[in-house]
């Protein structure tokens, strides 16, 4: 009697262990499948002209995503120019004075902003810039990306700056060094690794964002380096090519996906390298 009850409990325990282990395997299946498909199908689309030439018109085979690569770089560069000072500055603010009412309010709002769907941020920037300017532009796309980067940057910066011992800051003040110098040259510099991690993660996120670009940066068949003009980008190219009915474009979507995945992977690896595993998994 007691023996059979014990056997049943042990069997339940074993069964649940197997089930939970199976859950881990199930979690990894889509990841492995996705990586495999992107690498296998993407690699066959890659070539020198794929990286360097413009898209061909519908019906002509060939062409590349060179303008998308340049466009993504332009968008990310502008977004970083707008977003980095604001995001890092906000993070320093939260670390220095985040415990007051103003600080707590800003932190709360930043967390809410982080949860805003990116497509809504795109709508807002459309209303703010695209409509008044009567033009889709790289600038509008970058602003939308910057809005998404800022809360990530603020949070990552605050987390690492708070790890810097306050003694360091106070010792610097005690030596007569000005507050801004102590803040920037002592505290922020000590936290530089962590801030770099936050920057890389925010850039990685922005690099893959598609929805807000659809109606801000739009897209462009040609080369563009002007902030006030519509601009192609890798994620939007992937979307447009993937949903198109042309097999050649669909193949190119996989190639562009491989490029984007490599970019995001490099940025994530850089994020990890910058702190060498000291505080892994920040940013989220």
């Amino acid at each position, binding site marked *: 009697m007691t023996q059979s009850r014990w056997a049943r*409990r*042990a069997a*339940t*325990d074993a069964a649940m*262990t197997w*089930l*939970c282990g199976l*859950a*881990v395997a199930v*979690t*990894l299946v*889509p*990841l492995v499948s*996705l990586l495999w*498909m*992107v690498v296998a199908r993407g690699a066959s689309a890659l070539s020198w002209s794929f990286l360097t030439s413009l898209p061909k018109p519908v019906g002509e085979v060939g062409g590349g995503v060179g303008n998308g690569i340049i466009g993504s770089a332009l968008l990310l560069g502008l977004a970083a120019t707008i977003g980095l000072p604001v*995001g*890092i*500055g*906000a993070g*320093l*603010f939260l670390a220095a*004075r985040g415990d007051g009412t*103003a*600080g707590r309010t*800003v932190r709360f*709002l930043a967390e*809410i*902003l982080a*949860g*805003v*769907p990116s*497509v*809504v*941020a795109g*709508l*807002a920037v*459309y209303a703010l810039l695209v409509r008044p300017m009567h033009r889709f532009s790289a600038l509008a796309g970058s602003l939308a990306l910057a*809005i998404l980067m*800022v*809360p990530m940057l603020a949070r990552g910066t605050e987390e690492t700056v708070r790890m810097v011992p306050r003694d360091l800051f106070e010792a610097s003040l005690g030596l007569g060094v*000005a*507050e*801004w*110098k102590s*803040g*920037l040259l002592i505290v922020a510099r000590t936290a530089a690794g962590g801030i770099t991690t936050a920057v890389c993660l925010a850039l990685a996120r922005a*690099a*893959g964002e*598609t*929805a807000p670009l659809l109606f801000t940066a*739009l897209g462009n068949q040609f080369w563009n380096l002007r902030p006030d003009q519509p601009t192609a980008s890798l*994620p939007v190219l*992937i979307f447009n090519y*993937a*949903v198109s009915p042309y097999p050649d474009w669909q193949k190119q979507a996989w190639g562009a*996906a491989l490029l*984007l*995945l490599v970019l995001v992977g490099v940025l994530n690896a850089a994020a990890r390298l910058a702190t060498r595993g000291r505080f892994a998994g920040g940013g*989220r």
Partner: protein
Amino acid sequence: MGTSLPARRRLARRRLERTGDTLYRDALAAFGMSVAAALGIVAAESAKLAAPALRRFGIAFVGSTQWDPTADRFGALPFLAGTVLTSAEALALALPVGLGAAIFLSEMAPARLRAMVRFPIEMLAAIPSVIVGLWGLFVLAPIMRTRVEPLLARTGLPILSGTPVGVGLLAAGVVLAVMVLPTLTSLSLDVVGAVDRAQREGLYALGATRWEVIRRGVLPAAKSGLFGATVLALGRALGETMAVAMVVGNSPDMPHSLLATGGTLASVIANEFTEAVSDLHEAALAELGLVLLALTLLLSIGGRLLLRRSVR
């Protein structure tokens, strides 16, 4: 009483640095405030864009099932239903798997395996949604069409009826599940790992098996944190745009079955906005954005409050 030149220079420098300090503090405060302002601007500008639709349809917009841009008839209900259905499906699929994986990694696996598996799982969260959508469209959808959907249709349930086409609400839910799984697993792992050791040791001392310790000791203590993680995952699922837009099939009809094509609040904005046929169409899409914003704000505030209470 003349001060010496170096002393005066030092004084001037001190004054300059004090100005620098004031500037520094003001600048940081301004950056902080601009984050707050950004949220305000996003809400205000979306509302401005939606104004014509808000004036024309008001709150009845949310309850109307008609979406016909060429006839100027707009209602949010089909997309609200699509959003709720796909998100619910995503959670129903991802919750048991994510929680099971978190339990395995936290309670059953050796620490080395945990570190080894956690990295790729979190990597999955970093993959851009447009790439997940590409995978959903060309890898998942054909499997759904040829294997999964014919099987489900045989059950005869009305919610699973229809022709298997691959793309549709069901596929969108699966893609969403794949996308929220890493968030869910990683947050659950934090919550379960944060449960006090004494909670486990007490039960082991009473002779409980490992599963009984988890079932009666760990999970009850982690309950509110797990609920918070679920709410955050739901918030991500609701707002997810590209992957859904690529596999949901894009139809504005009221969903009658999971096998049917449909749309979500986010996916219809992505698919129709640049091709809006009229200003009212654009405004109606923006109003869908407002509904989505309201939904996610509610959830993210609620989820954060719950998580804060249990983890910190």
